[in-house]
């Protein structure tokens, strides 16, 4: 039972490079989310999706794009990486609305450093 799987686990980029983070869930969840975690700030929502083919902006969407072409996958893209995007990125999924007794299930994170 894999749950939520994030790839890669670690990555170092140079400023201006692009990359895509992949999130895959095997629980048939409708909702998926991308967060970034920075020291002392908890988790901040970047983008989210309420179903296949849908995406929406969260708190800190600038510099990121997302796609949800398949229900089980949620991709996070950095078109031109900046040092301010150095962070730990978490993907999560949930069955439905977050507050309808449905908690979020998290991946183990992707540690991204931008030099």
């Amino acid at each position: 039972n894999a749950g939520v799987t994030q790839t890669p686990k670690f990555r170092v980029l140079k400023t201006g490079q692009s990359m895509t983070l992949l999130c895959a869930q095997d629980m048939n969840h409708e909702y998926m989310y991308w967060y970034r975690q920075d020291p002392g700030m908890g988790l901040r929502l970047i983008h989210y999706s309420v179903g296949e083919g849908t995406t929406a902006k969260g708190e800190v969407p600038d510099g990121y794009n997302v796609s949800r072409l398949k229900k089980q996958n949620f991709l996070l893209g950095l078109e031109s990486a900046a040092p301010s995007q150095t962070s730990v990125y978490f993907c999560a999924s949930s069955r439905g609305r977050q507050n309808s007794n449905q908690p979020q299930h998290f991946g183990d994170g992707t540690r991204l450093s931008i030099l």
Partner: protein
Amino acid sequence: AQSVTQLDSHVSVSEGTPVLLRCNYSSSYSPSLFWYVQHPNKGLQLLLKYTSAATLVKGINGFEAEFKKSETSFHLTKPSAHMSDAAEYFCVVSDDNDSWGKFQFGAGTQVVVTP
């Protein structure tokens, strides 16, 4: 609008002594409240959740939390700390009124357990 404040950024306890992690929230509507735990280099794991049923909520690993509406608090407790409880803990609030149930994370409390 919703927000959550974790009153302690760091808590240090001795093994076998009680643990208290404090969380205050603000919410315009009936909130759902969660506590998550994050062990080093891991994703977040749900400890427990409050969703307008019993005000005293029991979770995994001996943790429990009490919802106090008059105090707008949702403190997490455990009677006897174990070394494996060393981790970061996040209090999370979500408004029932949100159409998609946005999660608002606290900044986290780092728990250190000493032998």
